[in-house]
């Protein structure tokens, strides 16, 4: 069967179940394409020979009742994978080989998936362009020298470039939704507590969530139902009844109330984004949804709040990288000197910057003025959403304030880089689910995304709205395979 890598996850699963394709054929096709796609730099670690072996083994005794039967999948290199290098895009974890498996990756292997390799990302998931990775930039399959977004940049590039049928990323302030939007794919950040954080290299523990990235909404729903589980190993994992999201997926969203927050119409928003949003509202109406104007008055305080809370938690989480128990160690004259050199040489500049911001806002004399203040504003932001959800079932916004930018364009200006996450960060602060779907192109032909934000634990509802709108939008990603010689 030709063009295996062009098939969606759902098609591949069906073809394997119908015995029209073997796991080996599928795995081989994705390996071949990945081998031809080295210029994208999407992978940090390739595990092709083991993947092929596993696919052959699967075919010998195929269990076709599984949800991901013999499907090869590459995942973000932030998930600990037992006996396989896990770097988090950092020099400090350059040789770290976990002795345990993250819960979300274990969940996909339990359903028959096969690991293809580990995908590039910003160092410790801190970045919006994949440029902070120790392992180099990732190219966006849409155009050469264009960032794929971040931090799940390798993941986005690999799905859009058809190097993997689907992937898992993580999202702390937009790290799934922004790269999904930049590469023309679908990305879901689930409700906080839906997917276990066990075995994920920690960045900001009160914000981090793993989630699916896919070619379409149906595939995204299927992967979400596999990775979401209650896990006693993560004390913030929540024990609620999870849906079989893909089975319950429907495009009937008649009468659903969708809110349009006026505060997201930010100063200097490009016309193209404004236009995309207007079209999105029309698509939602065409699907039978009712559009309601709402207000989220504290929206403009979300980014400043995030840039206190996330670095504070990061400075605490990253204290463990001291050159003693694991990871890179620099030589030092004494213990303190060893710590300081290890962290100075082992972390990249963005990570150091965030650790220092976090250390400062938590330091004696500044805690109340910064950290406590931010936690209070975070409460106000969450209250805004609670209030809005008395009136609406979901909220529709653009995913990002622009399309993908050029590599190097924003690298030296941290604040302008941070502004990328203006529409996604409030969702993490409030712990809500949000999905980005591709919805159009800008004048340069680069993809643009729309975000649908739901109530906590209401993934089914936003998946349904996304599914219905996807049908109306009928988006076609413009991938020319420019990197394949």
């Amino acid at each position, binding site marked *: 069967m030709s063009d295996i890598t062009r098939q969606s996850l759902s098609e591949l699963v069906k073809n394997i179940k119908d015995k029209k394709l073997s796991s080996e054929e599928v795995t081989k096709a994705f390996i071949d394409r990945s081998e031809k796609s080295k210029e994208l730099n999407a992978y940090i670690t390739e595990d092709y020979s083991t993947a092929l072996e596993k696919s052959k083994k699967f075919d010998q005794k195929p269990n076709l009742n599984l949800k991901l039967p013999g499907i090869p999948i590459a995942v973000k290199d932030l998930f600990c994978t037992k006996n396989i290098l896990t770097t988090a895009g950092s020099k400090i974890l350059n*040789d*770290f*080989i976990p*002795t345990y498996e993250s819960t979300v990756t274990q969940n996909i292997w339990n359903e028959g998936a096969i690991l293809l390799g580990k995908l590039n990302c910003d160092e410790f998931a801190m970045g919006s362009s994949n440029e902070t990775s120790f392992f180099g930039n990732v190219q966006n399959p849409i155009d050469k020298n264009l960032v794929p977004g971040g931090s799940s940049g390798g993941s986005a590039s690999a799905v859009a470039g058809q190097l993997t049928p689907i992937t898992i990323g993580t999202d702390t302030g937009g790290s799934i939704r922004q790269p999904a939007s930049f590469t023309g794919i679908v990305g879901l950040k689930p409700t*906080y507590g839906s997917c276990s954080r066990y075995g994920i290299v920690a960045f900001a523990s*009160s914000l981090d969530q793993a989630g699916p990235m896919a070619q379409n909404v149906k595939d995204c729903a299927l992967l979400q139902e596999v990775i979401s589980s209650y896990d*006693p190993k993560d*004390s*913030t994992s*929540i024990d609620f009844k999870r849906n079989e999201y893909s089975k319950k997926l429907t495009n009937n969203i008649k009468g659903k109330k969708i809110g349009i927050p006026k505060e997201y119409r930010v100063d200097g928003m490009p016309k193209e984004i404004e236009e995309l949003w207007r079209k999105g509202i029309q698509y939602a109406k065409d699907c039978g949804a009712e559009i309601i104007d709402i207000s989220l008055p504290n929206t403009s*305080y979300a*980014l*400043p709040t995030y*840039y*206190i809370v996330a670095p504070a938690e990061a*400075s605490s989480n990253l204290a463990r990288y*001291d*050159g*003693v*128990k*694991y*990871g*890179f*160690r620099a030589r030092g*004259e*004494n*213990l*303190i*000197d*060893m*710590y*300081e*050199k290890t*962290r*100075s040489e082992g*972390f990249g500049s963005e990570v*150091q*910057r965030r*650790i*220092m*911001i976090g*250390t*400062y806002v938590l*330091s004696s004399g500044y805690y109340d003025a*910064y950290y*406590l*203040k931010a*936690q*209070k*504003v*975070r*409460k*106000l932001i*969450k209250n805004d959403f609670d209030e809005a959800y008395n009136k609406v079932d979901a909220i529709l916004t653009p995913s990002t304030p622009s399309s993908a930018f050029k590599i190097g364009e924003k690298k030296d200006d*941290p*604040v302008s880089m*941070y502004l990328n996450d203006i529409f996604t960060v409030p969702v993490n*602060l*409030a*712990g809500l689910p949000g999905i980005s779907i591709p919805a159009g192109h800008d004048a340069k032909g680069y993809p643009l995304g729309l975000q649908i934000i739901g109530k906590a634990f209401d993934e089914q509802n936003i998946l349904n709205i996304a599914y219905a709108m996807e049908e109306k939008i009928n988006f076609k990603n413009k991938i020319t395979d420019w990197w394949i010689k």
Partner: protein
Amino acid sequence: MSIDLKTIKHISKLSRISVDEQKADKLVNDLNSIFKFIEKLNELKTDNVEPLTSVAETTLKLRPDEVKSKDIREQIIKNSPQDNEDYFVVPKVIE
């Protein structure tokens, strides 16, 4: 308020990250522009607002205190930079 070189040196010490002069100068610039952006929060009155410490709004579950992993010393030591069989080895601390 602005962050000066002295503050950067202090934070560098607290966070156990050594910085040379050149890096320190860049950090002064970067952190000042970031904190200028953060200061926006001072526009909001929050005296009577409860801080949000967790979005999950559930109380932590209790579980029996049981040993679940035994004899994993090798696994724990495996990734240490200077593997010395039974211990983590660090530079001399006591003279």
